[in-house]
């Protein structure tokens, strides 16, 4: 594997709320290679979005972030706000879930994309307009010259998400962080947005961090997958490995919980349920966070935090009793 583009080590994020601290992310480490698509999967509240937001410090002031996130030789978490602004949007850019709330409703689309270009690259307005048309063409928006002068509400959901992607790609970033980019979209639109992301990676070599709860989307596009549970990494593996040989009981549970085509044939078949619920993040348990819901849990799981161990090449699991069922 090439030298990592982004190397995150022991990232922890704590929110100090009126009701005490919430430990959203606990000592998370991962790497991202140039041109790689890394899927981060987990259910709501597992810390997947917070992780990515913390990298470019988009979190509110109440967030206490520790650890290191080395991007291109510099630690993002130690940068001044001014230096960070040169990275944010230019080297590392974001695509969010809900394109309607992330676009400004009172400005035309062209102006919003153009702003990125004039602010970051110092283009003139004329140059920015030219480049914006190119970008809209890149994300396959028909008649870009016309779309430029439309407002977000005049576009469909799929179009808006394309505009978001165009905006994110404006400065030719090295890393694109896409937080549930297709969750708000219909399946036929989702398919074309996934194709677009794949295309972006192939043509521009952009590394993509894809945050999602949808294991189908990950199966479609990711090279490597990181499964998070309660702020910690449960499992990390190359995509094929994760689906064919999941090791962590949580991953196995998640994969079993999704209805699959052949299920319909056998009317007696049930989906796998994961009993119990996600633990509170108020305190960091000195045990496996999944122990209370895990069929394999024993004394050991309840007395220590499992460290990540390598079970197969590039396949890491944080479990005392890993393995397939």
């Amino acid at each position: 594997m090439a030298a990592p583009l982004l190397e995150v080590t022991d990232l922890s994020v704590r929110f100090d709320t009126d009701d005490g601290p919430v430990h959203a992310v606990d000592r998370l480490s991962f790497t991202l290679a140039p041109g790689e698509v890394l899927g981060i999967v987990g259910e709501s509240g597992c810390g997947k979005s917070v992780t990515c937001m913390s990298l470019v410090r988009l979190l509110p002031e109440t967030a206490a972030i520790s650890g290191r996130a080395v991007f291109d030789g510099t630690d993002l978490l130690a940068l001044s706000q001014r230096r960070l602004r040169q990275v944010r949007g230019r080297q590392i850019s974001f695509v969010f879930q809900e394109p309607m709330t992330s676009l400004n409703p009172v400005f035309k689309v062209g102006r919003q994309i153009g702003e990125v270009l004039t602010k970051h690259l110092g283009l003139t307005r004329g140059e920015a307009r030219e480049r914006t048309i190119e970008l809209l063409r890149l994300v396959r928006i028909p008649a870009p010259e016309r779309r430029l002068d439309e407002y977000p509400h005049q576009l469909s959901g799929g179009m808006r998400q394309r505009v978001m992607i165009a905006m994110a790609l404006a400065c030719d970033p090295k890393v694109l962080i896409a937080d549930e980019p297709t969750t708000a979209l219909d399946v036929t639109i989702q398919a074309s947005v996934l194709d677009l992301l794949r295309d972006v990676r192939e043509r521009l070599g952009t590394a993509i961090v894809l945050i999602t709860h949808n294991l189908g989307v990950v199966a479609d596009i990711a090279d490597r997958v990181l499964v998070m549970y309660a702020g910690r990494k449960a499992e990390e593996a190359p995509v094929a490995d994760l689906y064919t040989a999941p090791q962590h009981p949580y991953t196995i549970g998640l994969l079993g919980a999704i209805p699959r085509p052949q299920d319909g044939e056998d009317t007696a078949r049930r989906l796998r349920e994961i009993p119990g619920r996600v633990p509170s993040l108020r305190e960091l348990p000195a045990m496996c966070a999944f122990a209370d819901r895990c069929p394999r849990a024993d004394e050991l799981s309840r007395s220590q935090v499992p460290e990540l161990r390598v079970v197969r090449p590039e396949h890491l699991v944080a479990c005392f009793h890993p393995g397939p069922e």
Partner: protein
Amino acid sequence: MSEDGRPYALEVRDLVKHFRVGGTIAGGGSLVYAVDGVSFELRRGELLGLVGESGSGKSTVANCVMRLLEPTAGEILLNGVDITHLTRRQMRPLRRELHMVFQDPYSSLNPRMSCGAIVGEPLRLHRIANRADLDRRVDQIFDRVGLRTELRYRYPHELSGGQRQRVGLARALIVEPSVLVADEPVSALDVSVQASILNLLRDLQDDMGFSCLFITHDLATVEFLCDRVAVMHLGKLVEVAPRAALFREPQHPYTQALLSAAVVPDPEAQRSRRRVLLEGDIPSPLDPPSGCRFRTRCPLERQSAPASTEEDPPLTEFAPQHFVACHLVARGRPAPRLVEPSSVAVR
């Protein structure tokens, strides 16, 4: 009327719902053709999936069936009784037979009522049970939907999303309705919670035998749960078929595209699939295309023109129990395959 002479649990005939937008009290504005001539029947003990993308009108159908919206035209028959024009008062006794589970378990439960009161309310309103009886039945249904009975005294905000959806189910099922309308009941839930609600719904249906109109955009859920599937596109049904037939031999080009676009959690299978790419976006229901409403996005438009622009294809029986609304499909004549059958078979 069904084959065995008993009326269907629910029958919808030529349902139309248009909304007026813009304009004033005096008139004007334009019409949203949300539902435009939808007919289907829900058989006894059947789980019928109504699938479609956003804006297809599937929730409007549900709301009309529930009489939460006044249909513009058409008929709705509940157990053979025409309920389309009943007043609220006339509807009241019939509401016992017809209940609904909503998508969002956060906004569909009254935050000021305890969960026990929420679940017991239908019994109270229908004056079915006296106090002691009510307590017992609430306990029973809590048990049946997998909620600890002490949760009766809790308020909705104290419960997790999955637990709340169980409360919603308990409330709908406590009066043992013959028809349950479920509008995206698991879409707001996490995967592992979804699984438990879907399992539960299946078990309850087995036990209690109600008929269920299950509305969703998620094909995998439909394939897991439903006996029959109706696919909706821009206010019309484009295909209705038993589950196996629909997933194995989808006919309507829209159904084919929809199935090919759904992602499966298996990298190898997923990456070897070919997708039918649809051009453009769903047309606006304010101004649907003439003729076949799918024609502007249809990959087979060339083959079906000019009929597609002139005439709206009606649902015709392509094979027994398998109905398709497409000019290219006739009895025994299947639609051209948009993707190789091998890649469809993966689904």
